[in-house]
């Protein structure tokens, strides 16, 4: 009768001993059982899904990297990062519902997202009063304002990108004078068009043509036919979706346009050339950075390797710009030693230089937005040559 008792007693002692040893000698493993939830609202379906899924991939790369090193270190504790993904369908109402769910049910204090200005403006009435730290993208100026202290923009907008790219264009191609703008007919397109006009004027470029198109348009012939009458030196379609950009290039060339094509956004060169055609895409200037080419930092190389390890080839060059979301949030939480969004926000305000995969970055924009909440990273400029991206240079955006 005694043997079973003794056996079970020693079994229990052994298990407790193992737990004790693990707890003492491997504290990160033990502590990493704590979870830290972050909300993420991106367009994972609908017309904005290209960007939303790119953001999801980049954020997941960082999440896996942090969890692999034991987790997020806050004071003496370590937390495994869990991200609660919500799909805003590129639609304000869905984004608002997602935010309400994240704040009221999941009780998150940090939200990453979204791509759409309309979604962000719909979420801010929830995030700001609840002191939720909201790290966003989107191009609309009004997303950042002095009365929205908990919102930080983690990606460059057309304002900053074009402040880097237009001076580069005029310097590299001094004969360019006349610009044509083709932008989508929504809040993003209107905001970009304003930026283009203002920055073009600062760079002594003349806007010869500007017209909006409805998202979902595939036949640009009628619009481009009219555009060609203005005889532009380069055509800028920064706000167009990647596929639309390729179609515009293809149809411009079919109609006999010989000038430069330009977009202050990132593209996937393979997809772009498949739609536009390699010959038509020749010389296209974009804000894409080839992570295997010139001007590549160690951080970017590591990001490339991590990305390939998770998702395999081919690498999506649209993704790197979204890496800063979780990268800077992790740094800010660890520097503040707190999970309190107000303390993290204060740290983000105070620190002048953040280490990102693009090199040192900072928050600026006080003069333009009225609050220092816009990330400033280098602007990369590349050209399509024989179907490949060729890095042409980097510029730091100069404030207007």
């Amino acid at each position, binding site marked *: 009768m005694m043997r079973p008792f003794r056996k079970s007693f020693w079994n229990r002692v052994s298990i407790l001993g193992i737990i004790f040893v693990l707890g003492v000698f491997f504290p990160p493993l033990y502590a990493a059982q704590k979870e830290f939830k972050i909300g993420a609202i991106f367009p994972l379906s609908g017309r904005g899904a*290209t960007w939303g899924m790119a953001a999801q991939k980049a954020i997941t790369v960082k999440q896996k990297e942090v969890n692999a090193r034991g987790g997020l270190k806050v004071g003496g504790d370590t937390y495994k990062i869990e991200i609660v993904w919500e799909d805003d369908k590129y639609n304000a109402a869905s984004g608002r519902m997602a935010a309400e769910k994240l704040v009221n049910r999941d009780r998150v204090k940090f939200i990453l997202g979204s791509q759409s200005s309309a979604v962000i403006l719909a979420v801010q009435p929830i995030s700001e009063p609840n002191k939720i730290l909201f790290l966003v993208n989107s191009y609309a100026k009004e997303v950042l304002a002095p009365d929205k202290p908990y919102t930080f923009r983690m990606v460059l907008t057309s304002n900053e990108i074009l402040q880097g790219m237009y001076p580069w264009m005029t310097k590299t191609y001094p004969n360019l004078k006349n610009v044509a703008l083709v932008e989508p007919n929504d809040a993003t397109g209107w905001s970009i068009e304003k930026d283009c006009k203002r920055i073009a004027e600062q760079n002594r470029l003349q806007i010869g043509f500007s017209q909006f198109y409805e998202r*979902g348009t595939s036949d640009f012939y*009628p619009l481009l036919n009219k555009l060609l009458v203005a005889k532009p030196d380069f055509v800028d379609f920064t706000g167009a979706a*990647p596929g639309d950009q390729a179609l515009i290039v293809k149809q411009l060339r079919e109609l006999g346009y010989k000038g430069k094509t330009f977009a202050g956004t990132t593209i996937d060169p393979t*997809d772009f050339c498949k739609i536009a055609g390699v010959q038509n895409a020749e010389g296209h200037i974009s804000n894409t950075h080839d992570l295997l080419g010139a001007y590549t930092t160690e951080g970017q190389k590591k990001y490339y390797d991590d990305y390939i390890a998770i998702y395999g080839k081919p690498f999506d060059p649209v993704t790197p710009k979204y890496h800063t979301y979780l990268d800077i949030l992790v740094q800010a939480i660890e520097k503040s030693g707190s999970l309190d969004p107000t303390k993290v926000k204060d740290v983000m305000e105070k620190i002048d230089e953040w280490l990102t995969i693009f090199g040192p970055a900072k928050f600026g924009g006080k003069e333009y937005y009225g609050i220092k909440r816009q990330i400033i990273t280098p602007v990369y400029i590349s050209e399509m040559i024989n179907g490949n991206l060729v890095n042409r240079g980097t510029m730091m955006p100069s404030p207007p």
Partner: protein
Amino acid sequence: MTLSFFIQVFVNGLMLGLTYVLIASGFSLIYGIMRLLNFAHGEFYMLGAFATYLLCEHLGVNYFAALILSMVIIAALGVVVYRFFFRPFRDQHDPSLVIALAIAMLIGGLGLLIFGEKDKSVSPVFSGVIKVFGATLSQERMVVILMAIFLMVALTLYIKFSKTGQAMRAVAQDREAAALQGIGVDSTFTLCMAISSALAGAAGALLAPLFFVNPFLGMHAVLKALVVVVIGGLGSIPGAIAGGLLLGFVESFGNTFLGDITEILGFIMVMIVLLFRPQGLFGHG
């Protein structure tokens, strides 16, 4: 405005209009015969484009063979959707409308899940441009124009002169009387769904090399189709042709003379038609 510029605007309108005709004709056919607003029609168009993409780019099938195969595949899918989803709700307007919307959302969602969010492309079949009275037109657009005209003529002749086409017209006019004459209403509906879906598949296959392919094509396409058939007359094939061409020309000339507000012209036309001729330009009262 020079003559060549005017011709370019006209040719752009013709191309745009024929694109709308291709998508709207199947949508209108279904309503004409079955009295069903098939909101999933746009998704069949999207699937037609994807079928062509997969056949051409992944299986290396010749483009014209892929075009026919895509029509067959989407026709078969249309029949399956009819037999399993629409037939149980036949003659019930509201449930069938909800079912059509649900199928559209289901196919759109599955498309995103299976094909991913990125834009895909079908390699161009013809390259280069041709000049028509000073206007520029790519050769692949010319092929689409000719194929669209061929399909519309074939459809019109089929409905007018073939026995099954006459049966369709009979069912559309008076279902009970047609049944009393020995016409199988259910088989006519099945055939109608197959033809309509094949047309959507053809539209997807024809336009895939011209533009791009992604899972979001359907909603925009069905919205345009709705505008076209309301203008032309719900259920009328000549109405779909007239409505599509009219919308194409209005958008092309609107873009040239009015600019940004062009997109709302279609909806303004819908309002005017509904006010003064609710049955549409070619519809019956």
